[in-house]
């Protein structure tokens, strides 16, 4: 028996909040990136749930695009992390404040 859509949505909300917490709390850029992926996945889950319950495949297509964007984001984000680490020897976002003033 299929669970009702609310369950999926609540799960998605909790997942999203966990991702937000990770982004705000953690002091490691890589973990922050991972938390962003978590948030994206929470959204993906919502899309797929709605797609299923509304019987429209378009939600899944959007998830497809979200994955594309996530891949691009991860690649560029990691490249930035690498070059920052190469210059500053740190992954702590508190140390990355070159644009401060």
């Amino acid at each position, binding site marked *: 028996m*299929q*669970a009702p*859509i609310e*369950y*999926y*949505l609540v*799960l998605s*909300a*909790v*997942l*999203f*909040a*966990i*991702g*937000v*917490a990770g982004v*705000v*709390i*953690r*002091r*490691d850029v*890589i*973990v922050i990136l*991972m*938390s962003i*992926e*978590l948030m994206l*996945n929470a959204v993906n*889950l919502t899309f*797929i*749930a*709605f*797609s*299923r*319950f*509304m*019987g*429209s*495949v*378009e939600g*899944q*297509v959007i*998830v*497809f*695009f979200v*994955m*594309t964007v*996530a*891949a*691009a984001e*991860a*690649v*560029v984000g*990691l*490249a930035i*992390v*690498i070059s920052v*680490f190469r210059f500053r020897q740190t*992954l*702590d976002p508190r140390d990355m404040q070159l644009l401060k003033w």
Partner: protein
Amino acid sequence: MIVFFILAFLTLLFSLLVVTQRNVVHSAMALAATLFVMAVLFLTLDAPMLGVLQILVYAGAIMILILFVIMLLNPLSIEARPAAWWMLGSLGAAALCLQLAALVHRPAVSAEAAVPASFGGPESIAQSLFTDFALPFGLASVLLLVAIIGAVALAQRQR
């Protein structure tokens, strides 16, 4: 239903581990597990194609990339946890969570729509992707190309 609860429990467990594990690699592995479980969740929602893509793209490519970068940089320090900041962040996230959950009680789609057997398969997605979403699809490929070039340019050692 039971399947959903098991999967949801695992998802939440692993995702919490992502945020709470002090070791980056543990976090990454927890995230990989989360993504894997979510792929199964997708399968329960008649999205087999995306479930497999989830594993292929997220678990198989993005996470490997992240792990690869972790290995490459090999940050030794285990980060500290300032309690106040954790409290603050968690409270904020919890508040957001409550707000989002509150939205769910608004009228949503309740009944499950009837779908054909091929729903969520490669053909149905491709059908939509190459007709209605042809332009975004092209743009997405351009985006990937740009991301590749950008990443190479960024990570290249300065000469």
